[in-house]
């Protein structure tokens, strides 16, 4: 199978010591790969390097067999959406689309067809002659996606692609990415949306403090936490987290705002945790047990939650 993108011991450091370190990654045609990690884990930095927006400080990255990140032939085959939805604000969405379509080498007739198709898909066709400065953040994010799809790139690199999108737009995006994957486009998504990654992606890299803590097929990764359970408690007041953490059945505990997540080992009984809360159970407003997901795996491996409370 030809490799679209390959990174070996990729490192990108910043003066403050943060960055990504020694990352290995391969992307084959049709593959959907998620880069997951909490804020500051390095997933956006990694995506920027893979998208040629930043040069690696160490290691190598090759796109279609070349390591020259400034090679126009490489960039012509990449579609990149970074965290900032930057556009030429005084120009309309159509003008922005036209500029990028033509810069990426599309003939005027093809450009017109694809811009119309993309803007209609994104629900922006009616607002196509509106200056982008009048757009909401969600509309700008959609326009960024449209622009990235215009030249039918062979590799798509998307940073938090569902950020700012409503539910319908998110479903439309997932469907589109699945179709693109089936037609051979390699896709890398940086996200901390567990459900998006589990639903859409074939492979996942979990990043923590700039390093890959584990990677592999989603189903295989989930076997590491299969049989275990997550107990999620909504609390009014602080509870004895250390007491819970010290239980042998407990693999990890995280607290974020009023939510406490307790990762239970395979075969453990949630009642043992509840026993710790004996006498203070009135502090707990709701409690629920659910099957573990990639977020729980991350918590188990690193001891820190994958998502902020608001993102869960």
């Amino acid at each position: 199978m030809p490799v679209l993108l390959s990174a070996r011991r990729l490192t990108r450091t910043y003066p403050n010591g943060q960055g990504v370190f020694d990352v290995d990654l391969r992307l084959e045609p049709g593959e959907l790969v998620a880069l997951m990690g909490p804020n500051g884990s390095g997933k956006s930095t990694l995506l920027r390097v893979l998208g040629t927006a930043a040069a690696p400080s160490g290691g190598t990255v090759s796109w279609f067999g070349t390591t020259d990140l400034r090679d126009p032939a490489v960039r012509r085959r990449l579609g990149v959406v970074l965290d900032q939805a930057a556009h030429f604000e005084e120009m309309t969405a159509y003008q922005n689309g036209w500029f990028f379509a033509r810069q990426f080498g599309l003939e005027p007739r093809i450009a017109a067809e694809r811009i119309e198709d993309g803007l209609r898909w994104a629900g922006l066709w009616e607002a196509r002659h509106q200056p982008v400065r009048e757009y909401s953040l969600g509309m700008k994010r959609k326009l960024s996606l449209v622009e990235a799809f215009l030249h039918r790139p062979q590799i798509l690199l998307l940073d938090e692609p569902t950020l700012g999108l409503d539910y319908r737009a998110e479903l439309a995006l997932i469907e589109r990415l699945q179709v693109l994957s089936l037609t051979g486009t390699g896709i890398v998504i940086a996200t901390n949306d567990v459900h998006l990654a589990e639903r859409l992606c074939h492979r996942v890299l979990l990043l923590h403090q700039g390093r890959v803590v584990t990677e592999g097929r989603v189903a295989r990764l989930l076997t590491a936490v299969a049989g275990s359970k997550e107990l999620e408690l909504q609390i009014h007041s602080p509870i004895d987290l250390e007491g819970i953490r010290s239980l042998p059945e407990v693999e990890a505990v995280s607290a974020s705002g009023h939510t406490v997540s307790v990762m239970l080992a395979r075969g453990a009984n949630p009642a043992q945790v509840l026993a710790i809360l004996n006498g203070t159970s009135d502090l707990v407003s709701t409690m629920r047990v659910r099957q573990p997901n990639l977020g729980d795996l991350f918590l188990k491996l690193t001891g820190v939650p994958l998502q902020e409370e608001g993102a869960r």
Partner: protein
Amino acid sequence: MSPPALPASIWQRELIEFEQRRRALVVKLLFPLLIALPLIYSRAAGVYAAMALTMLTATVGALGSGAVLSRERAIGLNVRYRLLPRRPAAVLLERVAAGAAIDLVQMLVVLVLIAFRQPTRLAWLPAILLAAAGVLAACNVLGAWASSLTRSPGEVMLAVLLPLLPALYLSGVFTAPAAPLLAAISRLLPFTYLHDALLGALTGRPQLTPWADAAAGIVFLAVSAALTGLLARRVLERD
């Protein structure tokens, strides 16, 4: 309503955005007019007008380009340019050339005023035009470089003026260089030739010929293009 213009290239995009920012367009065109009109038509000596107009041209070129690039870096547009499938030198060259060309359009009004004021010295107008193009190109490159050193458009002003003011002094804009070394240095700076061409048109007492000033303008256009190529990666790839 006419259909909106569709930009296929960077220079077309710059022109369209310039045209669509109506208020900025009016300010840009009025600004040199308001400064040049009293300078050229008052009883002030032509030497002061030449000095002020040289400074105005240099400042317009450097500050405009520096502030725009700095703002674009802050809002993420610099990265969008970086990801275009073109070499960095080609991208920056087109941006700097478009910026300098728009600045030159601004300065055309000054040429018209001079032409009406001094109809017998029309030979100097092509020299002023080419020397101004050289100054604007060089100053746009200076602004681009300054934008890569700073974090905000406000800081660009400081980063631009620090080298610009001594360079203007060394060019003999304020006082003619007496020492041979200073005179030699002045010949290496683009402001010297614009100042001289303006002196030629406004006072009739230049140091050089119109041909020399015009040729120098062309040389500085070429030098600016080469410098743009050298600076492109630094300017476009800094976050």
